């Protein structure tokens, strides 16, 4: 049976590369009018001509490109400066604990939270009206869906900052930040400048793939664009989904051509980023050669801390607003709190929540479980053979996160339609697993490799087979990281919007896909209920991940953190 561990890496490679490869093929071919099994297409470039004839297409492309790059630049900048100014301090640890929970919050919930906060009738307006503004009714301002996509960029930054901070945190132990900063400090450099010259290049090298994942997501995401993004026109990805869900099947060829264009736009964003990387490195070298000490960096500290607090605070405040809305009775503008509280919204929404909630739980638990098994098999195989995944393997793990979802999930939908699997639980599970797997693997990597393998040698010396050692020693001792993996995998699945919409095809819905669908309707009380579940599910996952080991091992101090 242990000889079968090669199945771990083999299935993982298949799971990560297969859907991306086949999905892309299923997207690219129809773009040129080739679609085996579907009628209606004719070979040629005319779908691209049709695509470029769409009104304001260039504007949509520009929106996707700029919002993707802007949110990546801003979130990375905030994380870099904050780490530079505060790494190793109590502030840093506090912020890390504050931002941790945000990581598991679905993008859609974060976007809804921000929308509830900044909308013309949102909490901020209520707070300052009518005293400061004189408004007795919500002003007619385009704050949400603003044409420059500023609110969308803001939400993306608020959501990506915790992600990049956590990735930086994982990279910090490999970078001797403390010593480097002491050294550069002794040479007379300011803390921030010393960090950027001495420690950041090494850290950035390790978080580069996550940064590309951020660019890919920000330039091609659908849910945040639908909730906060511009409407006249929408971003490219949001328009793609409209075409993809069109009952008129001929629109699918247009959508395919559009998906290919999206691939180009994200590719262009990557290319620009590579240019920015060089530019920044050159600037840094110039500053280093010039010996600029930049000792007065107090402003950087203040700005980076403010940005961090704003990012976290906005989402937390918005979530609180969502929760209040779900219990609100009559709530007139500009009252800061509802006139009355009621359970009616919940009573009304709960019967409708049951089915998507069931699907969410089933898919979330199943995908996290399968991803956990595959990850464990991968690492057991690695231990057995002594061979670690090389650079190519590392990049492969990120593949589904770096290729824009919308470009390959659509092709996958094509294939599933052709095979009759569309909108079935196994197909949806499979689609979710593609995105859960990378996080599961990355999450287990460091804990698994830092395990003291002498425990296994002792067990073997006691005459125990590798199987017994795995199940009686290794896995129980690693219960905590395994459950964290489970909670993260589950929260990733809960948060997935696009794969749910395209593969569930409206017949299978989850809490997240329903919440986004409701967002356009504007019934805040019902949205509040759905968003509440979006918050609750990941939190419940992490609560279980913390409580279960604490309960099982309550007698064993060596198993406590």
């Amino acid at each position: 049976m242990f000889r079968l561990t090669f199945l771990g890496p083999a299935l993982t490679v298949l799971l990560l590369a297969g859907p991306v490869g086949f999905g892309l093929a299923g997207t690219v071919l129809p773009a040129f009018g080739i679609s085996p099994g579907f009628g209606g297409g004719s070979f040629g470039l005319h779908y691209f001509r049709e695509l470029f004839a769409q009104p304001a297409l260039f504007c949509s492309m520009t929106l996707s490109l700029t919002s993707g790059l802007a949110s990546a630049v801003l979130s990375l900048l905030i994380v870099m400066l904050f780490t530079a100014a505060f790494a190793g301090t109590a502030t840093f640890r506090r912020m890390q604990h504050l931002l941790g929970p945000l990581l598991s919050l679905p993008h859609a919930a974060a976007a809804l939270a921000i929308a509830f906060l900044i909308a013309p009738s949102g909490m901020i307006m209520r707070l300052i009206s009518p005293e400061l503004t004189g408004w007795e009714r919500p002003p007619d301002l385009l704050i949400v869906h603003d044409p420059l996509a500023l609110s969308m960029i803001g939400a993306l930054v608020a959501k990506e900052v915790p992600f990049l901070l956590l990735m930086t945190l994982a990279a910090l132990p490999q970078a001797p930040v403390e010593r480097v900063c002491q050294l550069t400090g002794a040479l007379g450099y300011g803390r921030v400048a010393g960090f950027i010259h001495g420690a950041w290049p090494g850290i950035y090298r390790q978080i580069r793939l996550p940064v590309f994942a951020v660019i890919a997501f920000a330039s091609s995401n659908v849910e945040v664009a639908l909730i906060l993004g511009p409407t006249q026109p929408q971003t490219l990805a949001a328009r793609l989904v409209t075409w993809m869900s069109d009952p008129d099947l001929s629109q699918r060829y247009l959508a395919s051509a559009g998906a290919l264009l999206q691939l180009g736009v994200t590719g262009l964003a990557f290319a620009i980023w590579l240019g920015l990387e060089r530019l920044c490195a050159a600037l840094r070298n110039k500053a280093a050669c010039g010996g600029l000490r930049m000792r007065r960096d107090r402003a950087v500290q203040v700005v980076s801390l403010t940005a961090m607090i704003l990012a976290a605070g906005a989402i937390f405040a918005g979530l609180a607003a969502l929760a209040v809305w779900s219990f609100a009775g009559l709530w007139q503008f500009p009252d800061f709190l509802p006139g009355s509280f009621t359970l009616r919204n919940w009573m009304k929404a709960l019967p409708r929540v049951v089915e998507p909630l069931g699907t969410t739980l089933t898919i979330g638990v199943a995908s996290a479980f399968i991803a956990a098994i595959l990850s464990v098999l991968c690492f057991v195989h690695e231990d057995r053979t002594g061979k670690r995944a090389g650079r190519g393997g590392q990049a492969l793990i990120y593949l589904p996160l770096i290729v824009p979802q919308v470009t390959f999930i659509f092709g996958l939908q094509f294939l599933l339609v052709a095979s009759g699997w569309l909108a079935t639980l196994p197909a949806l599970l499979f689609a979710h697993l593609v995105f859960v797997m990378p996080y599961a693997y990355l999450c287990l990597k460091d804990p698994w490799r830092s395990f003291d393998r002498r425990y296994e040698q002792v067990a073997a010396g006691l005459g125990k087979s590798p199987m017994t050692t795995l199940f009686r020693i290794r896995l129980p001792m690693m219960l905590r990281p395994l459950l964290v993996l489970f909670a993260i995998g589950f929260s990733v699945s809960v948060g997935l919007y696009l794969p749910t919409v395209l593969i569930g095809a409206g017949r299978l819905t989850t809490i997240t896909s329903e919440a986004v669908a409701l967002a356009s309707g504007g019934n805040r009380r019902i949205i509040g209920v759905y968003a509440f579940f979006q918050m609750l599910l990941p939190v419940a996952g992490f609560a279980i991940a913390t409580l279960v080991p604490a309960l099982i091992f309550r007698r064993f101090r060596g198993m406590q953190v």
Partner: protein
Amino acid sequence: MTDIVTDKAGLLLQDVVIRHGERVLVALTQHVAPGEVLTVMGPSGAGKSTLLGFIGGFLDPVFDAEGRVIVDGDDITDAAPETRHAGLLFQDPLLFPHMSVAGNLMFALPADIRGHMPRMALVNEALRGVDLEGLGERDPETLSGGQKARVALARVLLSRPRMLLLDEPFSKLDQALRGQMRELVFAKARESRLPVLLVTHDPADAQAAGGTTITLEP
């Protein structure tokens, strides 16, 4: 090399050569009789632990090894680690933190001893043998350093090993405990007639062991 009878009792290392690339780390032929101790000394990086890994079956694949490991006449060179019954003691006690003291010992006890009562009886006897009677239900983490080391010894003895491989097992104990623990380990090994291979930095270990001492060159 020398004419060695392979059915001799004890641990026989015959023409063992361990290389790292071109560099020869270990080259030896030795026989350790039951109850005797072979002490291997040498500076860090000289290949002491590598030799233990080779005998126990955990040799890091970056090393190449040749030669035979023979225990009581059985050639175990190519056997799986779990069938070699090489009892290991490291400088850390490495008690399984998710099991009680008795749980650790029960885990070590071979499965052919059946029934809870007989197994428990053996575990209690083993605890008594290392002066820890009545501590079976304790969380290993709550024991003192010396107690943990004794549990580790009891655990390895309960698994009915055919030899003991000791990787600097006394180096983390303080001076007073170190002497006691040495005596206890060697006494138990003699009692159970186990060949012992001891890897150490400390010349006092070698002296207390009393057997042959070889020194590996860096």
